[in-house]
């Protein structure tokens, strides 16, 4: 390796890295501090002197109490969880089937279908939300969780298919052929041999799909109208701001609590998530 001097390592490595860490994590730190800060301390002008600007000596749970008692936050949390889970499961099943077909089966039009699915991957939600809201209403799905459980797969299936297709291609064909010689059907070999081997790939696709569902905003904003149906991002935006007043303590408490489930899911599966993330662009 190239030998470096000590001060050079500080200048080119430690200091930049520290700045990156500060930039990346400070907003979350500030979110947490704000959520625990009592109101009088929170609303102090930018010119005012403060003995403890970056932390508080009187942490309070007031904002969390206000949030849980004064809004439907727990209901939103539950809605978001349920919708993200169902959308992920639907997308995984479709993606596993389609990915297997594209990776292993020979049929006319397979290349065209692969490209078509890839293109739908790149269609953003903001291009379609206006007519889609109308379609959802006509299907009597408006303001129900199904509106999201069925539309979230539109941006999850292409990605799951693409990722799993790549994964299935790395599994040696011999594995399947052995099972088929032993009398397994194609379908049976897929379900009992290929899918179990592909569990890491399926986990990657699943955890990535879950975080994407949790993050989705515009469909949830447009398709859901009643307070008790909303997801966390939409509920926080539309219900925690009363008139023009921002209750920053409660808002930050809501942001913090709304981030915890997805951050937990992520922290348990970091490696799978990273594999999904990097796989999602490599195809």
């Amino acid at each position, binding site marked *: 390796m190239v030998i470096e001097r000590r001060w050079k390592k500080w200048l080119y490595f430690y200091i930049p890295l520290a700045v990156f860490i500060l930039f*990346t994590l400070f907003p979350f730190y500030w979110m947490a501090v704000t959520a625990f800060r009592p109101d009088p301390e929170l609303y102090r002008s*930018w*010119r005012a002197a403060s003995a403890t600007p970056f932390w508080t000596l009187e942490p309070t749970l007031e904002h969390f109490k206000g949030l849980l008692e004064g809004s439907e936050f727990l209901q939103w949390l539950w809605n978001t969880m349920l919708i993200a889970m169902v959308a992920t499961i639907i997308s995984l099943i479709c993606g596993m*089937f389609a990915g297997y077909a594209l990776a292993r*089966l020979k049929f*006319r039009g397979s290349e065209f279908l692969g490209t078509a699915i890839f293109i739908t991957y790149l269609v*953003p939600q903001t291009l379609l939300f*206006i007519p889609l809201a109308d379609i959802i209403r006509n299907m009597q799905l408006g303001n129900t969780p199904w509106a999201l459980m069925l539309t979230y797969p539109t941006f999850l299936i292409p990605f799951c298919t693409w990722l799993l297709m790549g994964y299935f291609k790395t599994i040696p064909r011999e594995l399947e052929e052995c099972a088929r010689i032993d009398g397994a059907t194609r379908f049976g070999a897929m379900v009992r041999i290929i899918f179990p081997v592909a569990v890491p790939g399926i986990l990657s696709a699943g955890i990535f799909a879950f975080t994407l569902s949790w993050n989705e905003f515009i469909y949830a904003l447009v398709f859901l109208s009643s307070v008790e149906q909303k997801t966390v991002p939409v509920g926080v935006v539309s219900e925690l701001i009363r008139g023009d007043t921002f209750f920053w303590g409660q808002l930050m408490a809501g942001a913090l609590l709304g981030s915890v489930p997805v951050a937990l899911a992520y922290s348990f599966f970091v490696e799978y998530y990273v594999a999904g993330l990097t796989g999602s662009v490599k195809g």
Partner: protein
Amino acid sequence: MVAGSGGAAGAALPAERLVVSRSTRLLENQRVLAVALLAPGVIILTIFIAYPFVMAIWFALTDISVGVAGKFVGIDNFAKAWEDTIFQTAFRNTVFYTFWATVFKLSLGMWLALLLNRHFRLKRLVRASMLLPFIIPTVLSTFAWRWMFDPTFSVINWTLYHTGWITDRLPFLSNGDWAMWCAIVVNTWRGMPFFAITLLAGLQTINPDLHEAAALDGANAWHRFWHVTWPLLLPVTLVVVVFSVIQTFSDFQLIYVLTGGGPANETHLVATYAYQIGVASGLLGQGAAISLFMFPVLFGVVWIQLRYLKRMEGA
């Protein structure tokens, strides 16, 4: 050809066994099985992507609004948007926002990837925590930024004032130009980890011997990056940029929460303006036309991507 487990159950009921084996045999045909496996995904994508896309074009050509069936008006909606000064600003903003956010995400993401590629203590923890902005729902983290940019209680103004950098507060979100740059900063903050982690994965596939050899030949760090790392990373970089451009160009939630398009409609993006016209004002036709203005740009980007993929496969 009957699977072992199916055979035992079928023996008791010969009629059923026949049915099972016929469908099983059908599924042995590659084409039939392919159709069956692809059907669920393709049906969902057709109903909720292809069909709405056609409807978007139809809406854009009519004067449909909430509760009023539309009649055909040709390209009136597009022409009207084209003349609309707010739309013009929104379109310019979208290009500006996409360009600068992508430049920052790529350069900072690359830098971060190079830093994370080295060995240091707590490397895994640092790498995992760097992805947080990308994981945490954008709406929620954007609220934290909005609070940090608050006109009266901004922590950034507080810090700069008390360290003597400023004497008057900075107008983060109350001035259109400032607000646009704030949005670019937040977008960079959110998207940089995606660049860093995917580029890091690319970096890890580069053989360290190449750097060794270049260093022995007297290349300095910058030359090693420019002549060894960058060309080898180019394929990954291109794909990541395409994804990011599409996401940024069609962005909605960040602006919706951070500025709501304000002050005085100065920070609208195409998507937020389409929402304001199509949903908040209920002019569905007009809104659909506005969001379709994104299509040519997105199509161009996807086309480049597909051409590139084809070339890679050919090579």
